[in-house]
């Protein structure tokens, strides 16, 4: 019979091969699933994979994938720091919300300025918001030994409630009500509830424009200047993780707590560092999202689009490696954008859950092959229990 035994040592080419196998398995299983879910599986798959050239404006469609990929990559890279060291922050969704809240509250605290000079302060507000939210599970874990995985997750629900409470109460915005003469006589609260919008000067505008094939008009893509901020943050952290002593220490931390102490790093420091990095990056992403896509806070369920949870998948798909995470994030974002495109095509009758399915399939294929790549197949004639 065939037995799985732990492999001794490893080579980087083995990791590449296993990634290739995972990708292939994902494509095959996804195609099979599409055959079950849709009437025209091959055409759906084709349009999904080539959606950037299927009608519409290619630049705009690429932009959707690029923006979402950037958000996912930044959050996932932050999470990967802790995951390597066995620190489980699964509450990035809540830290994302806290970041957006932090940026917005900074803007209010500064007296709702409209000058572009305060833009960096808003971003800092986002980082602080995310860090504050992440500091709760970090502190409880580092000093009171409370399970950080569950606490960080519970705080997602609390952050969602906080967002909903804020926009329905203290920061609810309203539209000016005018009398017959056109004078402002009051204010009608927005319904559904949302805060007042950030001024134009504090929004990240499109960097790239696409030309509409029909009218020839210029359309702004989602590739906005905020992505430069996120890209910079990604590169900085990736460089730290790959090339500096801190990155090396964190890598040591994953092997064992003992090795961690020998490397001069306390467990508490690893926990704090992991949570502050992941929380800060999720918060920064929340602030950028607020300043480039939503412009105002909305009720919890409407503001959050599961980026924080999807980033957990991305971190594992990318094998917790800065380069892998970047590829995984853009691949999944591309599939997401493609799936929402095929879902919008009435003749394909594909459900918009297709993307979620492919994401889950990819995750399981990646986890299975990652585990297999650390083992070797051995052929044995007979298998006693202690083979």
């Amino acid at each position, binding site marked *: 019979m065939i*037995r*799985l*035994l*732990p492999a001794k040592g490893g080579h980087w080419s083995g990791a590449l091969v296993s990634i290739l196998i995972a990708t292939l398995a994902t494509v095959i299983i996804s195609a099979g699933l599409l055959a079950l*879910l849709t009437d025209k599986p091959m055409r759906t798959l084709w349009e999904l994979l080539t959606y950037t050239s299927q009608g519409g404006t290619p630049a705009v469609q690429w932009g959707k994938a690029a923006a979402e990929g950037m958000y996912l990559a930044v959050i996932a890279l932050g999470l990967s720091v802790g995951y390597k060291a066995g620190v*489980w922050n*699964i509450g990035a969704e809540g830290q994302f919300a806290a970041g957006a809240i932090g940026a917005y509250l900074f803007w209010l605290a500064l007296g709702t300025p409209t000058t572009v000079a305060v833009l960096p302060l808003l971003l800092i507000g986002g980082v602080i918001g995310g860090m504050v939210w992440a500091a709760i599970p970090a502190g*409880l874990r580092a000093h*009171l*030994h*409370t*399970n950080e*995985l*569950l*606490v960080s*997750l*519970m*705080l997602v*629900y*609390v952050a969602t*409630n*906080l967002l*909903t*409470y804020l926009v*329905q*109460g203290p920061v609810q915005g309203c539209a000016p009500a005018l009398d017959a003469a056109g004078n402002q006589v009051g204010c009608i609260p927005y319904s559904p509830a949302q805060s007042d919008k950030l001024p134009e000067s504090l929004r990240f505008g499109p960097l790239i424009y696409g030309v509409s094939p029909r009218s020839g008009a210029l359309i702004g893509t989602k590739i906005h200047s905020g992505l430069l901020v996120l890209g910079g943050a990604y590169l900085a952290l990736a460089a730290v993780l790959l090339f500096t002593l801190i990155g090396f220490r964190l890598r040591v931390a994953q092997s064992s707590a003992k090795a961690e102490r020998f490397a001069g790093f306390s467990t508490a420091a690893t926990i704090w560092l992991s949570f502050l990095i992941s929380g800060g990056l999720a918060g920064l992403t929340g602030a950028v999202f607020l300043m480039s896509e939503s412009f105002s806070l909305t009720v919890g369920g409407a503001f959050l689009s599961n980026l924080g*949870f999807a980033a*957990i*998948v991305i971190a*594992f798909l990318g094998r917790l490696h800065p380069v892998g995470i970047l590829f995984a994030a853009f691949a999944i974002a591309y599939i997401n954008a493609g799936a929402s495109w095929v879902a919008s095509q009435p003749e394909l009758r594909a*459900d918009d*859950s*297709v993307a*979620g*399915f492919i*994401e*889950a399939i990819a*995750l*399981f294929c990646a*986890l*299975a092959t*990652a*585990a*297999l790549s*650390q*083992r070797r197949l051995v052929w044995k004639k007979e298998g006693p*229990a*202690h*083979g």
Partner: protein
Amino acid sequence: MADLTYWLALVVTILNYATPLLIAAIGVLIVEKSGVLNLGVEGMMIVGAMVGYIAGSYLDTSSCALMGFDGVTCLQWEGTLTIPGYIASFLLAGLAGAALASLFAVMTQMFGANHVATGLGLTILGLTVTNGFGPDAKDMRVESVANLLPDSWVALPTVGRLLGTDLLTVLAFLSAVAALYFLNRTRVGMLVRAAGENHYAAHALGYHVRLIRVGTILFGGFMAGVAGAYISLVQLEAPTWREGMTAGAGWLALALILFSTWRPLRVVLGALLFGLAFSLELRLQSLEWMPSWGVQFVLPSLPYLVPVLVLVIISRNAAMIRANQPGSLAQPFNPSS
């Protein structure tokens, strides 16, 4: 205000919220006692909630036809679950949970994949599956769930409300006692604990650790599925299906096990405490002195803040946790090396 009816209503609400947590947590308890950490409870619960609801809405009339009634009678039954339909719905929901759990079993027991990553993936998969089929399920209709006790009992003043609690609530509490008996007094229960305490020792004694674990994982999935179906079929005024309706109940079940330090009767205590946190929202939001931030932010967050608080208190006593935590929980197991 604080008369008998008020307190009984509070007890009924607490039991109502405690039931799914307790059912799922007993499943988690057995799984963790065998040394497996499955974080996919939330995903298995939401799938159970959906499957239970869909099964319920199909079984209302077909079970009537199976029982040999004519079409006119059956039309009156439409939208009401009969007792066979009710049992079948829960069984199907449990099987759906177990099916999802089998994926976890294959990944962790055959491929040796990381428990935490696979469990998280299972939750994400469950939420994805239900997001996909959610809109279809919404069109169906299950109006009321059959009560297992005679209507005349339930119609009694005051105590009737308590008697009207679902049979599953009773079963949930019994299952905690059964788990205690199973783990401490039965041969298979001992094997489960042996596999969890030290898998290499259990393996060396010739026990099939992986087989035991596959069994507990499937059981945990079944319980999570049943717990999910309780949320969609019984917990609310009328059976309802909504995407993401379990709202973290699966995570609360996992928190419950940490709170209980793996002891079945403390799971019951924790479930009642968490149930109280849920019912406080309904009970306290009408108080006049309650500020708006209390009603809109603190009260809805209580079900999540109370577990955090009790976990903090429990975690301070590391010795108690170490005394009961399965020694091989979520540790890699390579018997051939």
